[in-house]
């Protein structure tokens, strides 16, 4: 059974139409992301369970936003976020596991982040199911937002208990979407079972030009079940750009509007039809701009994607 509430979708589209007509300006300002595919700008993908359009290049915060209260580092994070939103970014993903990352987001997100398209995603990460609600509330407070958009069970930890909490929160409107995450290719079989049986909106997993196991079962299953896919570690924690450093991009780069290997690697990920969003992390403003310039040209087809992966493997 595919989880999707057609009434919810209709309501969202209706709200968008009313807002566009100027009838519901307050509602549109509260609506965090667009409901229609923009005709220009960054690549967007629909969230299958709602039809809401989401920029395909988001950002992660693992390591890069865990900088404590260092004033210089905080200033750089503000610039990174500005560059992200200026380029049409939307999803920012974090977790209580990432040290001070959520608190840093709360201190560095621009005041108008919602209006600029923020889609706030974090996780619940505790082995105690009863402790989940308090942890989620702490996250919301650290982000300094009235509501988070997406809550995910981090690395399947105590997922049965947490998923019940998240389902109740979604039903009450305290969160818009729910999901579950894994990384590094761990526990894919268990994730597959959850995707088959649970009414989740999102799944997050590791997918990049080298780690492609998800192509076999999980990505097709996500399409089949109408589950949005967040691809984490699109650069494998920085290893892939490092491997490509100084190497020229083959001629096909121009065909897809990419100038650098990192852009091509990111385009490879979001070009998979099942992938909704990729979340590269960076601590540099120039890298953020480079990331956000990816996937602006024609997307590679399946044959070219195979070639990108093969050419990268040959580096």
């Amino acid at each position, binding site marked *: 059974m595919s989880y999707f509430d057609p009434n919810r979708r209709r309501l969202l589209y209706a709200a968008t139409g009313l807002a566009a007509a100027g009838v519901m300006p307050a509602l549109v300002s509260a609506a965090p992301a667009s409901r229609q595919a923009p005709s220009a700008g960054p690549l967007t993908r629909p969230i299958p369970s709602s039809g809401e359009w989401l920029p395909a290049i988001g950002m992660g915060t*693992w*390591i*890069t936003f*865990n*900088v*404590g*209260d*260092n004033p*210089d*580092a905080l200033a750089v994070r503000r610039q990174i976020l500005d560059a992200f939103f200026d380029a049409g970014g939307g999803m920012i993903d974090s977790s*209580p*596991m*990432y*040290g*001070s*990352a959520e*608190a840093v987001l709360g201190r560095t997100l621009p005041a108008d982040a919602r209006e600029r398209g923020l889609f706030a995603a974090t996780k619940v990460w505790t*082995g105690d199911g009863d402790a989940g609600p308090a942890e989620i509330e702490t996250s919301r407070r650290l982000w300094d937002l009235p509501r988070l958009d997406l809550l995910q069970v981090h*690395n399947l*930890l105590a997922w049965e208990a947490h998923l019940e909490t998240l389902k109740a929160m979604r039903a009450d409107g305290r969160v818009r979407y729910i999901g579950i995450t894994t990384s*590094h290719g*761990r*526990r894919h079989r268990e994730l597959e079972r959850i995707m088959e049986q649970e009414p989740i909106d999102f799944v997050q997993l590791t997918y990049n030009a080298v780690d492609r196991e998800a192509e076999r079962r999980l990505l097709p299953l996500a399409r089949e079940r109408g589950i949005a896919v967040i691809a984490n570690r699109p650069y494998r*924690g920085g290893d892939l750009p490092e491997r490509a450093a100084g190497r020229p991009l083959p001629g096909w780069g121009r065909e897809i509007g990419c100038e650098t290997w990192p852009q091509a690697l990111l385009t490879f990920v979001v070009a998979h039809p099942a992938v909704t969003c990729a979340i590269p992390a960076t*601590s540099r403003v120039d890298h953020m701009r480079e990331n956000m310039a990816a996937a602006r040209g024609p997307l590679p087809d399946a044959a070219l994607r195979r070639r990108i992966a093969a050419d990268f493997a040959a580096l």
Partner: protein
Amino acid sequence: MDWLGYSPADMVPFSGETWRALIAGYNDDHVPAVIGGMALGLALLRLTAGGAPRLLRATLALLGLCWLWIAWAFLHQALGMLLWAADWLAWAFAAQGALLLLCAAVPLTGETTTRTRSGSPPRYPPAAWWLLAAAVLLWPALELAVGRDWTALGWFGSAPDATAAGTLAVAAMTPGGRAWLLLPVPVLWCLVSSAMLGVFEAPLWWLPLMPPLLAGPLRWLGRRRPQGPSTLPPSV
């Protein structure tokens, strides 16, 4: 959780740059403690140079205070912002501090006699004293030599690495079975620190491994060392 599937890099949620910035900020926020810790380190070198057990107990007590301070100020307050496991480490450091104070409070008796048959103080391998000297003086110098900014150096008495190294040296000097109790937490921290520096690809990732590798053999040598004329380092 399938912990075996995780690598050290998965356990360290911050970068080497952030780690160095954390130490620099901590040093800046606690200048008196940093200076005090360093002065304490020099005092410990003086106290242990003579090898008198009474002074060794004072050494253990002062070290215990350093561990308690680091548990609270460095691990709980500073590192706690970045690392969810920092409070676990803080509790381990606090336990080590308490253990050091306990060892300092209990007279060195029996095997830990305050005097040998010849009437001279019990002795320890001179290398143990030199290991303490390295923790106090050489450690920050090596960090500086590999390019770390002087504001981000980890000083004995206020930063965990050099303090753990110095504590292992003092444990190697301490007579009696209780000395073995003083080893686990500093050894654990040295392993954690080395792994973390390895994740950061820091040039001195191997340095925290040296004290644990040396302290055990030094302690063992100290136990087997025949009583005779003192070969302790000269008083400083």
